[in-house]
């Protein structure tokens, strides 16, 4: 279960103080597929970074399964990212000189998974995201944008994280592949009890999630009825 409590993140821009995340609080039950929609610059990616422990909040806290991220030292935050979080970045952020398989194997290597086991799982995950097996050993810079996005999703799933944070996961995919990815995320959420939070402009994708949030000027509002979640919505 993820509890977000009065989360605030401010930045200085000259004399001005910007608040891309302004007193955001919500809870997500384990296994929820949720989405956040909002205009560009509304603070969606910043909120995702705070939940993924890539950034530290100015105030407030994120509590994951009863453990506060605010009080966690850097080393434990690294462990948290490695063990509990899977990121899908908007720009993929794959390692360009490594193959698709090697990219998917990376998080498992950091988690200490044996080489043979991680190679096997990486191939399974790439098949799951429907990457052509001929392209498993191909370097990232020789794959198309859509193929790279599928590799990025497979990498996010590598360590079977409890929470997947996806920033525009279908943004660079054609409609058919995008549909498949949505289906995949939904299956993961349902069958593997994985919490998935998707930031998207794609209204179709947002409509397929259990809970839909809107972020406007740093404040979060929920647009959907609470079907699976019990979290209170503030904003």
């Amino acid at each position, binding site marked *: 279960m993820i509890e977000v409590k009065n989360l605030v993140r401010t930045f200085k821009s000259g004399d001005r103080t910007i608040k891309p995340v302004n007193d955001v609080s919500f809870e997500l039950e384990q296994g929820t597929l949720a989405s956040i929609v909002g205009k560009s610059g509304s603070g969606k990616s910043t909120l995702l970074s705070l939940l993924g422990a890539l950034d530290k909040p100015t105030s407030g806290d994120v509590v994951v399964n009863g453990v506060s991220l605010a009080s966690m030292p850097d080393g434990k935050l690294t462990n948290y990212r490695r063990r509990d979080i899977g990121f899908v970045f908007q720009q993929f*952020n794959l390692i360009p000189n490594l193959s698709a398989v090697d990219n998917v194997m990376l998080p498992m290597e950091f988690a200490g998974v044996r080489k043979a086991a991680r190679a096997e799982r990486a191939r399974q995950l790439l098949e799951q995201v429907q990457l052509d097996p001929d392209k498993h050993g191909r370097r990232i810079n020789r794959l198309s944008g859509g193929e790279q996005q599928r590799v990025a999703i497979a990498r996010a799933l590598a360590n079977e994280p409890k929470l997947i944070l996806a920033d525009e996961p279908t943004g660079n995919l054609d409609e058919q592949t995008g549909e498949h990815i949505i289906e995949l995320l939904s299956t993961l959420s349902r069958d593997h009890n994985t919490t998935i939070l998707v930031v998207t402009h794609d209204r179709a994708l947002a409509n397929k999630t259990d809970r839909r949030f809107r972020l406007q000027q740093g404040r979060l509002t929920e647009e959907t009825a609470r079907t699976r979640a019990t979290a209170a919505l503030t904003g």
Partner: protein
Amino acid sequence: MSVLARSVGNAFRNKVRTAAVVAVLAVAIGLALAMLVANQAVTGKVAELNASVGTVLTVNPAGGQGFEGGGEPLTSAQAATAAAVPNVSSVVGTKALRLRNAADMAAEAASGRTGQGGPGGQSATSVTTSLTAAVDAGTLGNRNQASTGASGSSTAGTTGSTAQAAPAFSLPITATGIGAEMDSTGKALQLTQGTGLGNYTAASTGALLGTTLATKNGLSVGSTFTIGDKTFTVQGLFDAGTAFGNNALYVTLPTAQTLAALPDELSTMIVTVNSMENVDAAKTALQTALGSDKADVTQGQRNLETAVSSLDSVKNISFIAFVAALGTAGLIILLIMVMLVRERRREIGVLKAIGAPNRTIGLQFVLEALVLVAMGSVVGAAVASLASGGIASALISSSSSTSAAATGQRGGAGGFPGGGFPGGAGGPLGGASQLLTSVTASASPGVIAAGIAAVFGVAIIGALVPALLTARIRPIEVLRGE
């Protein structure tokens, strides 16, 4: 893919840049290794010089030197006195004999020339031999003979006015009785054939001949010849490196004393001091112990100090250059890795975002640096093995020419008067110049391995700084572009 495999892959990510980095590293590492090789070669040579001729003092009878001068001969008792002087590690006595060919002496006597042939002196005794000198008298020998050696018809050779032609003058052969396997200057004999004389403290009928003297007389190891009425067997041939030095022979000291019929008498004493730093003190103490009216103590290779000092300079220069080149290699690695870390900030951020610990990322960069250094070391070792000899020679010749200029004015002449004994130390540095040029810088695997180990050590230090910098990169800062 392991960290190492990823590091190797990263090292070849940009092949052109990798080639350039390896080339620059190879120059720095090659220079460092060449300097280390030169340093080791010179260090070895300095130790060799210090352990041999650099610590040798020569004691001659006061007022006499070689075959010239006056005074009283040295005795075995004085050798014992010298051995008791502090810092003296060994004393070897010599007895010089001047050998004249029996037939030549008879011919000279028949023609009325009664001189001894060459300069006379109390410390050498003339004895006849069956050997013929390997060196022709030439203009200098005949001039010396005319001015100092002959009586009566001494001008015959130069004026040519006499009706009866004088027989050609032949130079004497130097025979030296020695108490150890060393020449009259204290240097180890360089035997080219045969063996040494065995027990040098006992009388024997063995002899060591200079190569040209043996050739002139058609002798080889096992051949015999006579000195006085005794037959000697050639036990070995030596190469002294000079025409004069090779026109000589060595017998044991007791044999020479017996031939001269002077059993307790020494021509010179070769005194070895335990270290170069103690030479001056030992020389003074020796002079005091023996008495300045009884013995002259000289440092035959005095100017060798300059040579060794010059080699020490080369040693220091090469060491400093080694450290500088090593530092340069480390700096190159540091700058390259700082550049790579800056270039790959985003990638580092991604690795951190997906859970890579700081130590794994740091290790990846250190290993990448070591891959580059390994390639640079291979090329650098090849460069060093080709260039180290030339670099060492250039350093030594440059240094020795400087010291030669500095010592040239006080350098002694060769031949009898200057060297303290026949053997010709001619040239501003005497034998030292020959020793200097004999420094051989060979890139031995041990030295190269030690050098490369040092390079790797410096490279690790150089790579650690940028590797530690990666720990300061916060993923959100580089991913904020999202």
